């Protein structure tokens, strides 16, 4: 694991990359890393995130910058998802809607080396049209495949120098799963402590899943968030 500044951390994100972006709404959204990705300018991205941006900052800013070709998410439509809504209606961004639990489980499968799995979620719905189905023990399932990222951008509360992460309340959400599913995982954190500074029993994401850490500071994180809700 290396500690970098945000611009250096995202410098090698390639055009056309699949980028997993943590967060449930703005809770757990890595604003600092997304801002750096906007400055970096990588284009034609496929972004996997639960929502499709709120207000005009964070993921919404990345969308507004025209860098996203395709969104894979569970719930794009929100009261303040106007940036996405306009792009979608104008045909400027593609959308794949995935049930939230299948979204999480597909990334879990990618990180866990599972080739495919049968899930009951979505069976009999339009979101399972064309997919393989099977009845197992009297229950109907849909076959779903892993969802991998080239890069994951996530936000955590704290890292240690071994790359271990802990999170903060429901801002944890997709972060730990995405960390396992990407070739390169980049975490923004409030602070970085020495190895041993996080209780080994309380580590949520082991350092093996974390490639780069950006220490943002709690103040900057709160400022970024307030920018987000402004």
């Amino acid at each position: 694991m290396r500690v970098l500044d945000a611009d250096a951390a995202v410098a090698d994100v390639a055009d056309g990359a699949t980028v997993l972006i943590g967060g449930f709404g703005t809770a757990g959204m890595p604003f600092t890393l997304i801002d750096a990705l906007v400055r970096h300018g990588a284009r034609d991205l496929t972004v996997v995130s639960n929502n499709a941006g709120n207000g005009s900052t964070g993921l919404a800013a990345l969308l507004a910058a025209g860098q996203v070709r395709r969104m894979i998410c569970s719930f794009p439509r929100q009261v303040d998802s106007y940036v996405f809504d306009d792009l979608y209606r104008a045909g400027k961004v593609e959308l794949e809607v995935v049930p939230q639990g299948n979204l999480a489980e597909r990334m879990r499968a990618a990180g866990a080396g599972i080739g495919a799995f049968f899930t009951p979620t979505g069976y009999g719905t339009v979101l399972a049209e064309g997919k393989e189905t099977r009845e197992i023990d009297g229950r109907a399932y849909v076959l779903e495949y892993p969802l991998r990222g080239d890069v994951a951008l996530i936000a955590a509360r704290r890292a240690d120098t071994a790359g271990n992460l802990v999170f903060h309340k429901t801002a944890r959400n997709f972060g730990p799963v995405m960390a396992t599913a990407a070739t390169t995982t980049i975490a923004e954190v409030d602070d970085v402590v020495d190895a041993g500074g996080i209780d080994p029993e309380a580590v949520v994401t082991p350092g093996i899943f974390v490639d780069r850490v950006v220490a943002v500071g709690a103040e900057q994180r709160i400022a970024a968030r307030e920018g987000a809700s402004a």
Partner: protein
Amino acid sequence: MTTVESQLRTVEHADRGPLSRDEMAQAIARDIEPGSYVNLGIGQPTLVADHLDGDSGIVLHTENGMLGMGPVARGDAIDPDLVNAGKAPVTELPGSSYFHHADSFAMMRGGHLDVCVLGAFQVSQRGDLANWHTGAPDAIPAVGGAMDLAVGAKRVFVMMTLFAKDGSSKLVESLTYPVTGLACVSRVYTEHAVFDVGADGVVVRETHGTTVDALRERLPVQVRRLED
């Protein structure tokens, strides 16, 4: 709730009006056993929380990664990192726990929640649920956790008005809206009546401001009394 569960005959409360939204929430709360693990979805069903007895040991799950969710947060208690599935700030109760999304949805899909309460556009007589999409061609599709919740809990309760704004019944023979989940709903709470749905069809458990016979006139599905 013991009395409700062991109920043998349909009860007709014709000497009063339909249930208010709060009364519907109260009726659902009454039917949730002490000690249950419960997900209240988003929107109207979250009202149920206001009617749960604090001593009941009922634990609320929110699919964005928490058990032991407390009431909505106000003032200084607001933490933008502590939100419910509707993204409203909430609080934590003693004994709460946090977990990531894959674990949270594994918990749901694995059938560990006792009860989930959802809103609906339509419910079919066999318990099919439509609550995620109107099917309108210009609507941006958004499913969230609806399909996961529909198939995950041991019992899925629906809280909805019985009739749409155009007067049509939302309790239907077969769904015309896009499916959320098949044969997943076990009970439907409406302002006019509470129904059990499933493989045996529709059974009226109780009515409010109407009678079973009067409902039969307005509903496109066959309904039975508990004692039938």
